[in-house]
């Protein structure tokens, strides 16, 4: 199944990535598959070390190789397999057709240039690469328009400001504006709003939702916060130890999680009602250099059966709500 057939803007298929460390090889991604349809907000959620950032970097072509190595899989974007494109063609897509919003609004901006200067540099670079001709005034108009799209008050003043003059929430908006400059079809956001206060985070999530709905963007959001996923995303992929273990529409996932890891993770979230289970997960994620032969969650899973320790469950293809678990297969 390729991207065109599944109707997705971005399709990642069975992506495997290894990292070479001290003579050993860590199997960090072990067959990751996910789809981001056009005009949808898709979340990739998991705890630290689960491979969500590596997946994102592989999609954007930001993996350092070596030590990283893509050993299998496809990343299909608008019908092209990014892994088989010439480096020049691939870089031509990044920052234009697909662009990224980085995590930390405090350190992702250059402190010695104004916001306008930094945005102009991005535009000029893309214009050169795409052979577009644009006057200085046209570029400026585009910058002001984009700052307006991210609901920035007084865009002219913001364009003249240095990063230090802006609050965390404003900087996060600037980063989103930068990613929007070249009218991408796909936006990848790494932990949007996580570094901000909760009232500011709520504003950023509302903005992202608006961009997806009003501007027809597809958004892939990487996060560890299940609450953020439920508030913002249409569709969710849950990752554990280098693989997607469950994928479902957000409403279905939160109403009836199927994979034991997803259930255990939801039980860890403290409830506003003060009720719920609020308990952790025993044990730790596996060592990626020698992962268990069966399901990677089996050693921590309360429902593990003998079969789980010997054979990894396949990730089913097709239905909207899928879980890679022998229990679900049996049902």
């Amino acid at each position, binding site marked *: 199944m390729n991207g065109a057939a599944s109707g997705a803007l971005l399709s990642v298929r069975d992506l495997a990535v290894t990292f070479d460390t001290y003579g050993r090889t860590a199997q960090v991604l072990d067959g990751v598959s996910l789809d981001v349809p056009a005009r949808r907000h898709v979340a990739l959620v998991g*705890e*630290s070390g689960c491979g969500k950032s590596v997946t994102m970097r592989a999609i954007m072509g930001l993996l350092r190789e070596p030590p990283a190595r893509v050993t299998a899989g496809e990343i299909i974007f608008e019908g092209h397999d990014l892994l088989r494109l010439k480096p020049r063609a691939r870089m031509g897509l990044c920052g234009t057709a697909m662009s990224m919003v980085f995590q930390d609004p405090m350190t992702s901006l250059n402190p010695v240039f104004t916001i306008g200067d930094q945005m102009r540099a991005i535009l000029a670079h893309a214009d050169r690469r795409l052979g577009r001709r644009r006057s200085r005034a046209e570029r400026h108009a585009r910058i002001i328009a984009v700052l307006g799209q991210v*609901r920035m008050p007084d865009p002219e003043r913001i364009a003249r400001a240095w990063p230090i003059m802006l*609050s*965390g*929430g*404003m900087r996060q908006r600037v980063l989103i504006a930068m990613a929007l400059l070249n009218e991408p079809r796909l936006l990848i956001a790494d932990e949007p709003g996580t570094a901000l*206060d*909760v*009232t*500011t*985070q*709520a*504003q950023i*999530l*509302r903005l992202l939702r608006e961009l997806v709905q009003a501007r027809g963007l597809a958004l892939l959001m990487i996060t*560890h*916060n*299940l*609450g*953020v996923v*439920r*508030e913002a995303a249409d569709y969710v992929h849950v990752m554990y130890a280098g693989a997607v273990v469950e994928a479902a529409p957000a409403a279905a996932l*939160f*109403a009836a999680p199927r994979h034991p890891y997803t259930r*255990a*993770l*939801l*039980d*860890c*979230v*403290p*409830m*506003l*009602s*003060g009720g719920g289970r*609020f*308990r*952790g*997960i025993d044990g*730790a994620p596996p060592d990626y250099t020698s992962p268990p032969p069966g399901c990677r969650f089996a050693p921590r899973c309360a429902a593990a059966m003998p079969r789980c320790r010997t054979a990894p469950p396949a990730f089913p293809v097709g239905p909207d709500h899928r879980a890679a678990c022998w229990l679900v297969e049996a049902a």
Partner: protein
Amino acid sequence: MSDSPLLELDAVSKRFAIRGGIAGSVRGHVNAVRQVNLTVQRGEVFGLAGESGSGKSTIARMIVGLLPPDGGTLRFAGRPVVQSRAIQMVFQNPGASLNPRRSIGQSLSVALAAAGVARAARRHRIADLLGLVQLPADTALRYPHELSGGQKQRVAIARAIAVAPRLLVLDEPTSALDVSVQAKIMELLVELGRSLGLTYIFISHDLSLMRNFADRVGVLYLGEVVEIGTTEALFGRPAHPYTRTLLASIPVVSAAEARLRPDIPLIEGEVPNAADLPSGCVFHPRCPYAFAPCTDQHPAFTRAEAGQTARCHLLAGDAASVHDMTTREQPA
């Protein structure tokens, strides 16, 4: 005597100088904490909630005696607060609060020595402490880099309880950890609190976590307490518009939880600069219910319910209570 509070803060204030220029001359002041009154009872878990710049960490540092207040008094068991073994702190980032060149055993040994435990007895005590925080005894031989974030935080807790404190200040103890680890650490803290008879001051920006751990909660905004109440009252019927805004902003994981959030129009904008405080009520520029007195009169504390007070003009006099405001016209 046993009925008197363990910790009392009476009109505590702290300001910091803003320095600039080559000579470092004082350019102004930030009133980081203003007129804070709190009492913490023995055995209680008292939560301090607030966003960045609210003054919660400054208050924590004054409670453990790391910073002197500029105004008001802090009293612990009836005496002025000084740095002492009786009050200990667990910091936010366990990776940065443990010495990387000391084994865990050595780190704990330093704390035990400070508590006057004889050298011969320390080894035994270290094993006990590691047992209390549910780490294997051989953790003593390991170094911080060999441990996970959750294990390091357990060590930090063991170190804090090594000197037999009565009050533990927990400054965002789980914010650097994954949720699956966070739940385990909170479980441990609850258990230790019960078995060792500890009193906790729990500082967090995570209100859902606060709901599950604290007995009473104080909400801070721009250096002052705007609402204080039992956890039940404050989460069930938040009285201050800021508390309501905070609760309404929390991302939650179920529809049932979403219905628990107060109904309040979410406003744009961020916390103002603490060096340039708004007049009147400090929250008025962001408050959807602000009316005439809010811009120039600083509100006093008004009782909202039993065991719950808030600094808000809506609660005083004839003004409609904030609970009735949700049905009134809401700004678009």
